[in-house]
């Protein structure tokens, strides 16, 4: 091409045509062969290996149908068996964000106060403290009681009597109460194996660290409850009914899996650790 552009040969506009033609051919050739390979040939060949017809494989490759063209993935039509009916859609989060604390307080005075206390500090070891609990966590549990995903002799009926915005109001009210630290202890007083379980988990038993979700800002699921300063007896009770499968409203069976792998001593140690107020 260096010779082509010497001064004697021709005017620039005459030289221009082959450049335009051949570069268009080259560039479009590359893209079109990419489309041919990526959209048609590879999906069809992969789909054949996975027992998919050509049309399904191509739609999967384009993202029009879910799944990979290379794998015979289970169809979406398998009936789901959700452990909870709560879905964190933007609408639900809007309901939470618009909750009315005053209305929540009124409902608390009417219904919740006898067991959970006016400020969310419960009087009995059977009932959890709710002060400073995450609003999303309270919301999910009340909703689960309402839909039967979680069952409790008292709470099921109470929750069924509340409608969705009121649930959010109550959750927002308790979430806004300050947490208490009735019995502060220092980190050094916790047994090292419990601290280890909280911070590192136990990879040999496939137990993830508690703090991976239950620490503020850890980035766990939105419904993760705050455990700091919770009643020791309540934590023990809940871990045990998770372990036995009696409570089963944890998404992906996260807590059932973890709790079933913990020993009784570990459960007691963790409950004591969290009662003390480590966040």
């Amino acid at each position, binding site marked *: 091409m260096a010779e082509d552009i010497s*001064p004697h040969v021709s005017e620039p506009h005459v030289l*221009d045509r082959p*450049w335009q033609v051949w570069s268009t051919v080259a560039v479009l050739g590359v*893209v079109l062969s*990419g489309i041919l*390979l*990526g959209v048609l040939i590879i999906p069809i060949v992969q789909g054949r290996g996975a027992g998919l017809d050509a049309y399904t494989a191509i739609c999967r*490759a*384009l993202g029009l149908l879910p799944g990979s063209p290379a794998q015979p993935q289970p169809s979406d039509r398998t009936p789901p068996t959700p452990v909870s009916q709560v879905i964190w859609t933007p609408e639900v989060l809007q309901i939470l964000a618009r909750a009315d604390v005053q209305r929540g307080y009124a409902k608390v005075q009417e219904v919740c106060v006898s067991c959970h206390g006016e400020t969310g500090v419960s009087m009995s070891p059977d009932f959890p403290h709710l002060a400073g609990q995450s609003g999303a966590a309270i919301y999910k549990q009340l909703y689960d009681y309402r839909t039967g995903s979680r069952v409790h002799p008292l709470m099921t009926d109470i929750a069924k009597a509340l409608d969705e915005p009121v649930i959010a109001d109550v959750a927002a009210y308790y979430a806004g109460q300050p947490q208490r630290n009735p019995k502060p202890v220092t980190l050094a007083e916790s047994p090292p194996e419990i601290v280890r379980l909280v911070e*590192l988990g136990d990879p040999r038993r496939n137990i993830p660290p508690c703090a991976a979700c239950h620490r503020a800002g850890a980035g766990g699921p939105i419904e993760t409850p705050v455990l700091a300063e919770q009643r020791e007896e309540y934590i023990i009770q809940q871990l045990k009914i998770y372990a036995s499968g009696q409570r089963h409203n944890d998404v992906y069976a996260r807590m059932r899996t973890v709790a079933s792998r913990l020993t009784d001593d570990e459960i007691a140690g963790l409950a004591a650790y969290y009662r003390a107020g480590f966040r």
Partner: protein
Amino acid sequence: MRNVERLCLAHFWVAFAAFLVAAVLGTWQMWVRSPLGANVGTPGHYFMSVTAHGVSMAYVLTTFFIMGFGYFVAVTALDRPLPGKPLAWAAYWLGLLGVVLAVIPIATGHASVLFTFYPPLTGSPWFYIGLVLVVAASWVWCVLMMVAMTQWKRENPGKPVPLAMFATVANAVMWLWTTVGVAAELLFQVIPAALGLVQTIDVGLARTLFSWTLHAIVYFWLIPAYIAFYTLVPRAAGGRLYSDTMGRLTFILFLIYSLPVGMHHLLMDPEHGNATKFIQVLLTAFVSVPTLLTIFTITASFEIAGRLRGGKGVLGWIGALPWERPMVLAAGLAFVMLGFGGFGGIVNMGYGMNAMVHNTAWVTAHFHLIFGGSVVIMYFAIAYEIWPRLTGREHISLMPLRLQLWLWFIGMIVMTFPWHWLGLQGQWRRVANFNYADPIIAGWGPWVVVSLGGGVILLISALLFVWNLAALHRGPAVALARPLYALAVHPPQRVPAALNGFGFWNVLVLVLMVLAYGFPIAQFVIEPSPSAIVHRVQ
């Protein structure tokens, strides 16, 4: 010099001031993530620092440097006054205002969203508005570059545009295309969310629009280095450019292939099918072509220079090159870093291999080696080359310049090689700290300390760089007579219009972008995906 010295220097000093701040922050980040500085500062401080480091290095250093260098090229390569100089100054102040607007929310912790934004995270609207102003300033620059070239072509009908200016305008045209993606993301999605006008954001669409910008922006940063390779390096080495046509072809290929490839940043994203990812990965493979052309052409130009200087034998010409000159040394070191970084990039480009390194320090190592290494070292060399022309003063000694370049090279290698290794071991990126009490992570500790050593060397080099430039303002005044730009072995007399302008290539880019991004973007309109809740960083 046509009276643009102050304009160029004003741009360069903003660029290098941001660079210095970012270098200090980068070293601090490495320290707090190492076993030596563990538990210093909070994750909030860390992400604030990462945001400031990324914004300074990727947006402020680059944009202001490229604008300043562009103005310099427009007057020196075309040898005519800069058109619209008052507009250029207005753009400078607009960009500076944007930097100030963006820095305030970063420094007060209201914009710790990193320079790549990551919606549904949103920070203060001022952060985004500030960055939009920086981009708007660069758009003014793009227009001025195109006007300068058009006016020159009108005054010199039929003559080939000097390669340095041709490449600068290629970069300006590419940048206009490039910024469409991020501008759409910011103006229609992120800024409304940051202002509280909307409560949800389609993350898939936002990431797709950002990917439109994300690869080509790197070429926007890279092209000044390539301009130096083609037009300054052969001259500094005492030879000639092997092929002017190859240069034009390279910059045209950058314009075409750097845009429809951004989806290789989304290989792990669920919102796109395998087919569209495949097409863009295939196109990505072609981005290596202009780089391979450049390595060939510049090596050939080096050989010409080496042989002219008496180099004999198959490789004897390498030793005969004037390595004591900063531009030649920097080009050599940049090629080494480009080699390692390029091979790392080929790993990232492969769908399967990327899956193994995607969110690890490997990727951080790759872009620091390519951008922080090859590109920035050429920014240094360009600054050293043109500073005497801007100040009318000469370096007293080249020794501190060479020392600075060597320190940058050594620091970058010492920092990024352990990162590659740690990435292969699974060390994740974008995290504030590591728990070195964990036995697996404890094994990473020594390598993290080694890379911190590289970071410290880089900081020393950064300080020395600014010192070298500042010292030149007090150097002896001289009248420089040596030519700046390299001649080609066969200087072009006439070139086809296709190699002398961008009208035709813009049509081709449009067609390519429609084919590569048309369906991936249209699918969000055809079937809107679930939106995410806006998460405001406060």
